């Protein structure tokens, strides 16, 4: 295999090559396709903090749960969020206890529900990266245009480039290159990653999600390791260098950058989004006077924090498969269908 020939050549001067992806869809595709087992074991394919549900903190889940317990209030969310445990249980448990929590495919569905039931308050959980944030921005805009007053958003968005900067700066992770996310980049384009090449000298490749896309992306990264770092776009059928300007304008029109708390990492400056002052009447935190709870300690022995940074693989966690399974998950990387632990449990144990 072409990849392995290159790895062999590169590993004459180094022990191993560490490439990190930061997208749950890549995590699943790499596990499901068997790529990790097919490549030379000296090529380490690591999962970074690429699953928005996994990096959501206990405190954020607890805030959502407290909201859902209010009478007459409906929490609307993407399905991924519902089973993630906070420090007082998951949203699924709150739902079983009678809270009105509804799962939707699109934030627009939440707005439609709010318009159909004007006597109730609807709060959409704004979880996700730059791919998702514009869809919620468009929904807030639609709510304003239609004069909908019973719809608001609990923002918990996270931004990918600041997380990459954190990882690139942390010496202990020793990352040799990034497999960059295809759909985040469809929105933001290539420019926001240029600092990785210029300041950190790291090879970068925006990569698609088919197994052959991922192999080509890896190959382009290995070529850069031989010839010098650059910023390649392998996923050209979806990613333009400038990204999607309309989506960027929607996002920057409604949201502004704010600090955010990442599970397993902590606070990263300017790595989140909140509603701009003009749009604060759609901010669930202000509307319902919510204060952010402090993040609590993870479940005893859970090492999701280290898994999220690629410091350990899921199988190195003592809970993995023994007490932590998809049926009884101890941490978010096992709960989320795109978490690294769930991917290893399903395809690589």
């Amino acid at each position, binding site marked *: 295999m*072409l990849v392995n020939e290159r790895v062999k050549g590169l590993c004459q001067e180094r022990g191993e090559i560490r490439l990190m992806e930061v*997208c*749950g*869809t890549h995590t699943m595709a790499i596990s499901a396709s068997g790529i990790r087992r097919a490549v030379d074991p000296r090529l380490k394919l690591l999962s970074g903090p690429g*699953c*928005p*549900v996994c990096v959501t903190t206990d405190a954020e889940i607890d805030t959502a749960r407290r909201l859902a317990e209010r009478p007459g209030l409906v929490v609307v969310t*993407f399905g*991924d969020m519902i089973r993630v445990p906070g420090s007082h249980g998951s949203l699924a448990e709150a739902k079983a206890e009678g809270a009105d929590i509804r799962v939707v*495919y*699109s*934030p*627009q*569905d939440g707005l439609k529900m709010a318009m159909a039931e004007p006597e109730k308050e609807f709060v959409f959980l704004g*979880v*996700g*990266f730059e*791919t*998702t944030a*514009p*869809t919620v921005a*468009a929904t807030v805009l639609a709510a304003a245009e239609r004069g909908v007053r019973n719809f608001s958003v609990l923002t918990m968005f996270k931004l990918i480039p600041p997380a990459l900067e954190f990882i690139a700066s942390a010496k202990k992770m020793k990352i040799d290159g990034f497999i960059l*996310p*295809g*759909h*985040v980049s*469809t*929105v933001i384009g290539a420019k926001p990653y240029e600092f990785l090449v210029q300041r950190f000298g790291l090879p970068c490749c925006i990569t*698609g999600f*088919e197994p*052959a*896309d991922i*192999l*080509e992306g890896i190959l382009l990264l290995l070529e850069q390791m031989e010839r010098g770092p650059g910023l390649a776009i392998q996923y*050209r*059928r*979806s*990613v*333009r260098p400038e990204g*999607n300007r*309309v*989506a960027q304008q*929607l996002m920057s029109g409604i949201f502004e950058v704010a600090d955010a708390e990442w599970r397993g990492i902590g606070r990263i400056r300017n790595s989140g989004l909140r509603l701009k002052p003009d749009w604060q009447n759609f901010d669930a935190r202000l509307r319902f006077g919510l204060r952010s709870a402090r993040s609590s300690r993870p479940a005893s022995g859970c090492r999701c924090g280290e898994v999220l940074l690629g410091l350990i693989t899921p199988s190195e966690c003592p809970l993995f498969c023994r007490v932590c399974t998809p049926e009884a998950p101890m941490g978010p990387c096992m709960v*989320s269908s*795109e978490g690294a632990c769930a991917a290893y449990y399903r395809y690589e144990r």
Partner: protein
Amino acid sequence: MCLAIPVRIVRIEGETAIGEVNGVEREVSLIMTPEAKVGDYVIVHAGFAIQILDRQAAEETRQLFDRMAQAVEERRRQAGKRTG
């Protein structure tokens, strides 16, 4: 969570399109891809088209995948000859 899939646009009504994927029709907002036309493939995330699929790039990628598959097949045949 950033999962997005290619959807073919069948009809357009204002800012909303009816898209078709695997024979199933669904509503897609075109607010972020206002230049999308009937017959285009768009990449859809959470009910919104986030980009129009570049047909030329898609075709080049498909050809590259075909060549990769052929190379794998060729090696497999050669390996078969050596062992057989």
